[in-house]
């Protein structure tokens, strides 16, 4: 619903508190460090992005799928559902909600197989293990855990509005857009309203392009504190990327990650 963010389920239920997030992740963070946890989420955001691109989905759909994914694990441990199963399920559900149309099950599975084999072989030595029945079963669990909140507001539209206000700035828009995409690899989509994320990402883009829009930013009626927090989240992601070699590290991380047990625990 493009209408009113302030009355949306997104605003009312899914702008979470940092403290809540820490509490919900307690179990996983007993096994993984903060940084390892984030690296795992970066990896699966990349997987969702790649699946989406292979399926020729728009960025909006990919972003929605990523937010579903993050919302699920904001309420559940990584061990509840294998993220390798949840990731394509999020793509499947988001494509229906965002009216891209239903992706056929067989096409989704075959794309998962190709992507895992050709693009993520550094993470998985075995082939994609799931079938469409798994995705369909998983979809019900996902919908339940999302509390049927399927409409997700993204920073892209507010970003376009901000840029329209600034004036014709193609380069700035292109960069800020990419920063918004990057921000999906952080927790900001769980913690801040999308218009704030848009402003934060725009600010980063301005710094990179050395555009001085201080006066313009000062005119915005926003909580500067929040914007700075968002900027810090995204900048720390950039810092992490400088030294992190996913290809080298991810397999060990995935091994360390808590996993579902198909048998009852004692």
């Amino acid at each position, binding site marked *: 619903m493009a209408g009113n963010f302030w009355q949306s389920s997104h605003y009312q239920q899914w702008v979470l508190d940092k403290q809540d997030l820490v509490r919900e992740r307690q179990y996983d963070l007993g096994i993984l460090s903060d940084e390892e946890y984030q690296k795992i989420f970066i990896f699966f955001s990349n997987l969702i992005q790649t699946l989406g691109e292979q399926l020729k989905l728009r960025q909006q759909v990919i972003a929605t799928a990523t937010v579903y994914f993050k919302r699920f694990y904001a309420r559940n441990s990584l061990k509840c559902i294998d993220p390798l199963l949840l990731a394509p399920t999020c793509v499947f559900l988001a494509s229906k909600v965002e*009216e891209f149309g239903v992706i056929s099950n067989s096409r989704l599975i075959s794309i998962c197989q190709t992507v895992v084999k050709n693009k993520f072989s550094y993470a998985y030595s075995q082939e994609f293990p799931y079938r469409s029945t798994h995705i369909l079963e998983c*979809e019900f669990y996902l919908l339940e855990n999302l509390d049927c909140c399927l409409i997700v507001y993204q920073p892209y539209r507010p970003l376009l509005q901000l840029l329209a206000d600034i004036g014709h700035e193609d380069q700035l828009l292109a960069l800020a857009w990419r920063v918004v995409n990057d921000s999906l690899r952080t927790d900001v989509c769980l913690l801040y309203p999308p218009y704030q994320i848009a402003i934060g990402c725009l600010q980063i883009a301005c710094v990179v392009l050395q555009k001085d829009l201080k006066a313009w930013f000062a005119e915005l009626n926003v909580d500067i504190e929040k914007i700075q927090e968002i900027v810090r989240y995204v900048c720390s992601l950039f810092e992490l990327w400088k030294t992190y070699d996913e290809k080298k590290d991810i397999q060990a991380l995935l091994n360390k990650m808590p996993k579902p047990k198909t048998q009852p625990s004692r």
Partner: protein
Amino acid sequence: MDYDFKIRTANERAKVEDLFDYEGCKVGRGTYGHVYKARRKDGSDTKDYALKQIEGTGLSMSACREIALLRELRHVNVITLIRVFLSHNDRKVWLLFDYAEHDLWHIIKFHRAAKANKKPVMVPKGMVKSLLYQILDGIHYLHSNWVLHRDLKPANILVMGEGPERGRVKIADMGFARLFNAPLKPLADLDPVVVTFWYRAPELLLGARHYTKAIDIWAIGCIFAELLTSEPIFHCRQEDIKTSNPYHHDQLDRIFNVMGFPLEKDWEDIKKMPEHPTLQKDFKRSNYSSCSLIKYMDRHKIKPDSKAFHLLQKLLLMDPNKRITSEVAMQDPYFQEDPLPTNDVFAGCAIPYPKREFLTDDDQDDKSDKNNTRTNQTNNGGQGAQQGGGGQSDQGNNHSHGGPNAAKRVRLSGPPGHPPAGQQNNIQQPQQQDFHHPHQQNMMFQSGNQQQQNPTFQQRFQ
């Protein structure tokens, strides 16, 4: 998937059959699924609910859209989704709504039957106005939230029965509704033919690729006219609803027969319509030279100088760019003129319409039934009456009904353990009135309608 996680969530999950009594209380069916009238088992309230079991298994795209949109929408004139039940075992999806006892399809049908029998129906004078106002209010809310309904028709306009929301309009069946401010695909690519033909705007019939707010407004105009006259204004025989070609000769012919053929100055962009060449080939303006909405409505005793007629004319403008918006329509002098619209469309008067009937079980899954009952039922309400067994029976291929379908309907009392339903409305529900049979068409011109002198009541419901 983790075993403990599955067990834990299964224990937490509420099952629809544990919480609600609905067995034997089916009140509607169609391509959208089945609707039951339900009550809470724990007695924490004694309200009626509508439980809709979505057709098929799993999450279809339209189920997804319905859940996604209804989860966000909140307006007194839009049906409220109370809860979703996911039944993991049989992969069924259930939606819980407040129960609406009436809908405009049944209400209009009732009036038609009464008219045919020359028996007056007593309704408050301002009822049609109140209905229209609330429809506009709900649609204005949807439109300002960038949601198009796209399938407005009498069966989708529900009206609440006795209770705290008595006489309130609820717009329902958003299964086809979609966001339109930034469609990721051209809307016409998704499902080519959705809107019921009678309520379809001329630009859709001429191949418009994008749905607009104006298309919903046209449908509201059609509903308004139908409320005023008890006849579907653009009634048209339909053979083939599944066609992917939007162009529909007979439906356009019907529209021109009522409205007259559009003048170039009235609809300049008609030339840009994809099917404009076909239109020029198939139609001759001179055939419609004596037709006009004024004449049509005048035949139905709606005076061309009345405020109702003026508003109707603005809702039914052929050029979608000139058609009135819901916002402006709500400001129309019609609504400022006495009688003023009321929140309870029945304005506190007794509700003359019967309650919904329960459909018997052999109505539904009797697959061995080789006569045309089955076809009848699939078509009946197939366009998706949210609640109730109605729907436009004529939309399918069947033109002869009132037969097997009607015979299988029974009137029952309320759900098990509830007080009998039909006490205060002993009026016999007209048996599957053949709403659309050609010879019935003549009736409307002949039936003299004696205006009731009573200031509060009148026979027809303008």
